[in-house]
């Protein structure tokens, strides 16, 4: 959906999206890395199961909610990627304990 600048010289950071290895860049937010990954990273809502992607990218809309290293409902647009981070795309409602 979004493409990177060729002039971007930031260091690569390896993360996993539903188990698939993705190369992000140092300083990317989780949401930015997902939108640049080329993968289908649509979550589905807890209310109707409708597909969504990030909308505001500034912490107010909560359409970027993802599971990060096992913790659910994190705002992907406010979290910076770290080497080895495991992202899971949320489908529908959360489960208890996550």
């Amino acid at each position: 959906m979004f493409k990177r600048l060729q002039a971007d010289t930031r260091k690569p950071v390896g993360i996993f999206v539903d188990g698939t290895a993705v190369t992000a860049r140092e300083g990317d937010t989780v949401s930015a890395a997902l939108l640049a990954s080329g993968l289908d990273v649509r979550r589905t809502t807890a209310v109707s199961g409708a597909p969504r992607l990030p909308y505001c990218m500034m912490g107010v809309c909560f359409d970027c909610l993802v599971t990060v290293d096992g913790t659910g409902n994190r705002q992907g647009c406010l979290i910076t990627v770290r080497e080895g981070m495991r992202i899971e795309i949320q489908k529908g409602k959360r489960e208890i304990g996550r």
Partner: protein
Amino acid sequence: MSAGPTRSEYDVVVVGAGPAGLAAAATAAGAGLSTLLLDENAGPGGQVWRAIDTTPVRAPDLLGRDYWAGAGLVAEARASGAEILQGATVWGLDRNLEVAVSIGGGSRFVTARRVVLATGALERPFPIPGWTLPGVLTAGAAQTLLKSSGLVPEGRTVLAGQGPLLWLLAAQILRLGGGIDLILDTAERANWRQAWRYAPGFLFTPYFAKGLALMREVRAKVRVVSGVTALSAEGDGRVERVAYTAGGRRETVPVDTLLLHQGVVPNVNLAMAAGVKHAWDPIQLCWAPVLDETLATSVPGIAIAGDGAGIGGAPAAVVRGRIAGLAAVEALAPTAVRRGPSMETLRVARDRAERGRRFLDLLFRPSRAFRIPDGDTVVCRCEEVTARDIRDAVAIGATGPNQLKAYRRAGMGPCQGRLCGLTVTELMAEARGMTPEEIGYYRLRPPVKPITLAELADMPQSESAVRAVVR
């Protein structure tokens, strides 16, 4: 858990490290007050100077001079002695000036003698059919991706809406080598009738020449359709087409990314949760806090600076931040040595920075069609409540936004009304034949950002807090 604040009490706690918050913190700390600056993002700058330390877009002309102007204030705040914490989400503030903040998965309270809220603005809701489809984002979102990660939209891209940010974003995307297929301009030509008498004031601001240059730069490369009166995003599982009406004709164009924008409004959640009195601004069509000339709110000790005090733009936000910071210094350390400008000088600077704003407010006033939706258009994105649901609730007795929660859960999802609140107020006001001021707004309460129950339970407890609930 990341390192939290080094102390439990401060003279001044500032929330938000955009232009206003940086200026307030630098002014307070510069006069020797113990100052804590809390900011939710990974780095300082707010939205306008987002990622100023880390952006991969280094060539100065790409993001423009107004972006790099933030570097000086960031350096000043860092040198001022203020303690600056990034990744710090403030989720509570009360009349005792107790600030609840979450950092690295752990929460704690800090108390302040003065609080300056500099939580800025957010983009006005743009509730058109299909605005929840994947591939529809705000223009601000695209600009954030561009500034912080050097990303530009790929594929067929359409920008729709109005206002200065839309044109700035378009220019920035083009400068970075991105493509824009079409701009759908929703500005109402009739707005000139109200705006023109404020034009002379605007002509003497830097915004005038900059705005014209940006529009020229963009129009030379992109097809622009003006006078758009209806918009909808369509597609199966993601946006595939945008349909629009201009000059009475309906057209449909294929699209991969649709970017929406129709101005910004104050982000009121934390201030309202603290009990700060707000009033409806009938010109900017939003809630704004009731403030005195030093930006003090109705809650003693709490001031609001920046766009959260009413939209004024970045240069005005810097001056407002200095005013709020200096007011704290005058109250807490009247004899402190001050290096910066006097309050009198700042008031003059504020008037100058806010000049021309009325013209922009009136010219880019969004039309009813894009503020008060009809039919099955989603209003509350979180709980998926439509305009029809809300009108039906009014028909069977819902009187205002708070009663509506019981009928439809509107505003009760994680965004806590940030993306639906203004629409709900205006829609219910229209449906009931009342003013937005009479209809009111959601009653907001902490936590204003969601935290886990485990985080809440794990908070350090004071003896008095335990005694208040344990018998």
